[in-house]
């Protein structure tokens, strides 16, 4: 009786307790424009066309029920979560086993048919949907949890397992998944690995490059690469799985993963602070690292424009007054008394520091905890309500982070509904977003390449965690030396001689 009633009286938190809702059709109404219309310069590669013989071959591999040709069904696989891309794929295949994936890819390689691996389709750079008529290979049916070892903490799962469900399973063994992001209700672990997803707790648990112990993948030739070890240490030869992690589906399709899960914390505390300058945010961060030290598990900042979006567009309420910035500082540890003492010490310091936070709160129960996190996790969703969203995700030296936001806000003054800045301050990662009622090419021109040039000039990364996908592949040299890019191209040629695996993505057209 009680839990449902109680949850009803607080605004429904996304992420933790609900699937991330797909946004309604964009304000312009109906479907996004075809990606080929937005990027007319990209030409279809020299791939074959789908024939009836191909369809029969696929039906023989996965069964007729899992070969999707119906235009209405196929449409949803062609549109990305942000609704800024629409591909023209005609076919979706849904294999159940690694063997089926291998057979499909082998056939496509022989026939020179282009493919796009797709997990939860929550990527933000257009990397998970077709551009032309690439065949979508969906991992959604490969959703078995294979094993969890409560002693070593190693979890082995198929690529199509949804992150939030894996976290629930891990919880039953006193463990947790080492990553957490707003898309957790929909994203799949294969996609997380393919994009080297970061998220809210990278600060504490590190990146997937460290927590992935092994994986199994199907290479573009159809061969199965078995690197699925569960060993913590294995220095025998080149670590090929690292090539696949973060390759965004361009070097192969990940089919299984072995992840090292940390112990689930017994005590999680959350402080939410209101601050009036970015310098205060940086000072608070330094204080957090000193006073909270090893129990700090997340440090996020939100600017006033982002908070306004969440309040206006989603109707969420903020328990603090109006401030220029808000900070979420979370701690995770094994001893509640010890952690609360540390948090009390942190709060005392924060309140006595000059110009620092005087307005803030500490979550008293799980409901408040979820609500406060939703103010950060649902910013993306809230911005989509404005209409069309231009998303940027950059790494910068801490002092420069908000300078970029202010600079772009001035540059785009009057041309956009809002310029919102927020992100993983602890990782030096800014999420910068602009919104307009509908897609506006002139606004895009004002933003790109200017914003990337600004970042390059300060030796930052033009894509901290979202990846390059389709949308940023042309800017790779802003953050990587030319020779490095050429070595990448060699690796791509080696593993994918026919270039069928997720073409037009990650590496620039050359």
């Amino acid at each position, binding site marked *: 009786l009680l839990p449902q009633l109680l949850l009803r009286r607080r605004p429904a938190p996304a992420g933790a307790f609900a699937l991330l809702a797909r946004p309604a059709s964009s304000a312009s109404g109906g479907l996004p424009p075809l990606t080929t219309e937005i990027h007319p310069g990209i030409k279809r590669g020299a791939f074959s066309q789908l024939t009836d013989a191909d369809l029969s071959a696929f039906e023989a591999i996965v069964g007729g029920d899992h070969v999707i040709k119906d235009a209405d069904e196929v449409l949803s696989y062609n549109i990305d979560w942000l609704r800024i891309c629409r591909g023209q794929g005609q076919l979706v295949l849904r294999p159940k086993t690694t063997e089926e994936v291998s057979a499909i890819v082998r056939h496509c390689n022989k026939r020179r048919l282009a493919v796009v691996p797709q997990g939860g389709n929550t990527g933000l750079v257009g990397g998970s949907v077709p551009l032309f008529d690439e065949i979508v290979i969906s991992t959604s049916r490969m959703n078995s949890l294979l094993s969890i070892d409560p002693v070593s903490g190693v979890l082995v799962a198929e690529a199509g397992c949804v992150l939030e469900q894996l976290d629930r399973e891990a919880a039953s063994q006193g463990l947790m998944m080492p990553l957490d992001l707003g898309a957790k209700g929909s994203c799949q672990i294969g996609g997380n690995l393919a994009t080297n997803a970061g998220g809210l707790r990278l600060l504490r648990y590190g990146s997937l490059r460290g927590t992935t112990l092994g994986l199994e993948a199907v290479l573009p030739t159809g061969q199965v690469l078995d690197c699925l070890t569960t060993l913590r240490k294995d220095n025998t030869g080149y670590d090929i799985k690292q090539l696949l992690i973060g390759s965004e589906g361009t070097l192969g399709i990940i089919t299984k993963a072995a992840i090292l899960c940390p112990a689930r914390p017994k005590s999680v505390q959350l402080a939410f602070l209101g601050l009036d300058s970015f310098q205060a945010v940086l000072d608070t961060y330094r204080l957090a690292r000193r006073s909270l030290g090893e129990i700090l598990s997340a440090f996020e900042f939100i600017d006033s424009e982002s908070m306004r979006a969440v309040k206006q567009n989603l109707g969420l309420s903020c328990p603090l007054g109006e401030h220029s910035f808000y900070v979420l500082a979370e701690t995770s540890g094994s001893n509640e008394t010890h952690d609360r003492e540390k948090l009390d010490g942190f709060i005392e310091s924060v309140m006595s520091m000059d110009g620092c936070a005087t*307005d803030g709160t*500490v979550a008293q*129960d799980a409901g408040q905890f979820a609500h406060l996190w939703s103010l950060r996790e649902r910013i993306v969703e809230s911005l989509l309500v404005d209409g069309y969203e231009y998303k940027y995700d950059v790494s910068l030296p801490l002092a420069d982070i908000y300078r970029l936001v202010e600079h772009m806000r001035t540059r785009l003054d009057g041309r956009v509904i809002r310029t919102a800045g927020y992100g993983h301050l602890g990782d030096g990662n800014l999420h910068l977003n602009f919104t307009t009622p509908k897609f506006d090419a002139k606004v895009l021109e004002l933003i790109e390449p200017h914003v990337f040039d600004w970042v390059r000039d300060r030796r930052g990364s033009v894509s901290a965690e979202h990846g390059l996908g389709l949308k940023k592949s042309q800017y790779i040299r802003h953050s990587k030396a030319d020779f490095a890019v050429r070595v990448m191209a060699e690796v791509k040629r080696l593993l994918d001689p026919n270039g069928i695996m997720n073409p037009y993505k990650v590496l620039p057209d050359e």
Partner: protein
Amino acid sequence: YIHIINKADMAASKGLKILVGCKRVIDYAVKVRVKPDRSGVVTEGVKHSMNPFDEIAVEEAVRMKEKKLAGEAVAISVGPPQSQETLRTALAMGIDRAIHVEIPLAQLEKLQPIHVSKLLAKVCESEKPDLVILGKQAIDDDCNQTGQMLAALLDWPQATFASKIEPSQDSKQLRVTREVDGGLETIDVSVPAVVTSDLRLNEPRYATLPNIMKAKKKPLAKMSPDQLGVDLQPRQEVISVEDPPVRKAGAKVESVEDLVGKLREKGLVK
């Protein structure tokens, strides 16, 4: 035990003295697990917080202070040493001082509303509140008894399942709107009285940092059941605690043909 207050106009008086009950319970978002020996549920290492209905009671007391209907608000909790944290939360929300009736661990599991109401009644003898607000029920046992029992022990009027508390027309009593099966019922009660809070009474505030810091310095008095002269002899014995029966898993089918086939198999369609 009779406690008569000056029936002066409530608005002109110094304000009511309110006693608020807070219980420390397993946080409502936690998935509760039964102990393997089926003697109870696992509480060790599990997140606890203030009973949500008690949060609402605390919020109401603080609001009444802000509206100058109340002069002093005191929180009380009957429980283990960790109940102090629950009281600190109440203090951080705006309560003036707190009382902790500490129950030794051995007796905690056998504590029942009958005991708690007797302890509260004793405290009311010395504190002499004008109004006691309790949560309508605790989310761990769902008893919904303590408020009613307390009113009976004190021979005070009770207004349970309150969704609104305000001064009556003539300001000499409290007008309480109650949530009942048929809808809403409005009654006038004279003070002193016992009121229990229901979900729609209010939405509890977040504790602000300055108040969290101030709460540390607010008085928190400790008492024992012996001092209050209450016998905690259990009247009930828990025989076993079990999970509700597990729902049998359904079967997922891959196509419409499969579905029709399965329905036919089970004789549900011809």
